[in-house]
């Protein structure tokens, strides 16, 4: 069972919810940070890192002694990553999307495989019981989706091997990184706050994720702040509100110390354990439908 914690708007509490679910989950669970641009889950779960792997993208390297400057590669490349001008061929590895087209189409076999570092994948163990996977984009690297693909592949393999559940901390937004983070999930939790920005981006996320036809649920953070339109929207679209986290300065201060919300008070810990049960129930309903 895979649950993705997503939001649309950033800073609504995705990582808070992910960490709280991970420490109260009643089955074996793998915690995965797919917000590879700004991964934060490790700041709360504090895993002991057991391995760090560099994740490469395959980019072209031209053997000029074989190149006939036929231009087949540059005509195919959609990303301006390889260019032929007269008797000069140049590659721009930072533009490359790693499709492998140039290597496959070259009639002379003149294009070999080089690499560009996308970032790293860290594996670790939190509290001796919660395995963690984190993707971390290299600063200066523009493309997060291929790094996310790598982490997702490892995530599926580990979950299949160990039979554990998975909780994904997704990136904000609704463009390709956010969509690819929720694509593997059985259930989506949308974390929002009852403010005009929170509500606006929540609607964008709901609209973006609806075509997946996965059960979507809601956690409202900073309840009591702002306005109440999100409640009407959830009622109208049958989106179950699994929990509300009250707007309290004490909670913000607790978070600012790198502590996990579920561990602030007994009732919060019980609340998140119940959210976990509810999510697993929804997932099993789907798999038996």
């Amino acid at each position: 069972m895979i649950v993705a914690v997503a939001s649309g708007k950033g800073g609504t509490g995705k990582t808070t919810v992910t960490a709280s679910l991970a420490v109260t989950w009643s089955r074996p669970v793998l915690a995965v940070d797919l917000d590879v641009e700004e991964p934060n889950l490790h700041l709360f779960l504090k895993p002991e890192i057991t391995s760090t792997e560099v994740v490469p993208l395959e980019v072209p390297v031209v053997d000029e002694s074989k190149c006939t400057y036929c231009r087949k590669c540059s005509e195919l490349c959609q990303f301006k990553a390889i260019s032929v001008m007269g008797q000069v061929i140049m590659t721009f590895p930072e533009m490359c999307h790693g499709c492998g087209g140039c290597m496959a189409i070259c009639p002379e076999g003149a294009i070999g495989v080089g690499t560009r570092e996308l970032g790293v994948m860290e594996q670790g163990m939190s509290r001796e019981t919660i395995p963690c996977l984190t993707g971390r984009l290299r600063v200066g690297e523009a493309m997060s989706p291929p790094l996310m693909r790598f982490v997702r592949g490892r995530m599926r393999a580990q979950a299949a091997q160990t039979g554990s559940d998975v909780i994904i901390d997704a990136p904000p937004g609704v463009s390709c990184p956010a969509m690819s983070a929720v694509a593997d999930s059985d259930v989506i939790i949308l974390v929002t706050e009852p403010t005009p920005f929170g509500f606006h981006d929540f609607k964008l996320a709901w609209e973006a994720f609806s075509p997946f036809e996965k059960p979507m649920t809601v956690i409202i953070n900073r309840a009591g702040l702002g306005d109440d339109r999100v409640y009407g929207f959830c009622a109208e679209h049958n989106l179950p509100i699994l929990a509300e986290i009250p707007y309290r300065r004490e909670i913000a201060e607790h978070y600012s110390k790198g502590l996990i919300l579920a561990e602030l008070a007994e009732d919060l810990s019980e609340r998140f354990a119940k959210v976990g049960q509810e999510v697993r129930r929804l997932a099993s309903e789907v798999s038996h439908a």
Partner: protein
Amino acid sequence: MREVVVISGKGGTGKTSLTAAFAHLAENKVVCDLDVDAPDLHLLLDPTVTRTEEFISGHEAVIDPEKCTGCGICASMCRYDAIDAVDGVYRVDPLRCEGCKVCVAFCPVEAIDFPARHCGQWYMSETRFGPMVHAQLFPGQENSGLLVSRLKKEARAFAEAKGLDLILCDGAPGIGCPVIASLSQTDLAVVVTEPTPSGVHDLERVASLCGHFRTKVAVVVNKYDLNPDQTHRIEALCREKGYTLAALLPHDTIVTEAMVRRLAVTELENTDFGRLTREAWATITALLNA
């Protein structure tokens, strides 16, 4: 002409609320919302759209089932796992298709079309604070970086034509494609952070990204009173790296109150938060003209 972009690394630190206040305070400028994925600035600026343009960028592969012979070459060559066969019929998942054209080039029976991709819309608008350029990327679309570059280009052309002095941009969270695009030709990045482990961690990454592009950095610490230790860490980081600490703003619900009333926080009269925000803008203006 100067270009300022407000970014944060971490989402939800107050970029848009602060940009709206700066839009209220700055003169002779065009405002630009570069968070094309989940834009919010229009909620406070209430723009009247004067021009709408379609954003067409890149292509996507579409298999014609009538021509497809089911050989599977396309699926075997796709590096994005975007092509799957259901009952022997191959289909491209548009969400996964990167638009690389490899399947189109290698299909032995030319069964794959490659139409242009309609990724979103962009707008020129008028607001109570002056002209605004903004956009909406369609859900799940790529090419947000190209749309950001497009908006910056339009804002620049507009500013030059009208003799404006400043392009004030609200940026996206993160450090990826749209943020990198937003830093191009930018004179100053205002990084809004908060005194939390995530805020500090993400500030370090996004400010180091600015370093890659030799963009000057000014830091605003929002909710600075939430955790004095973390605020000291940010102050030390600014000293060490040479970032200007432009402002310390308190944890104050007035920001949300202004948002609910669809106002910039500086439009509310006689508030401490508004006064500090004005001071922050004065510091940023001085830095821009230095």
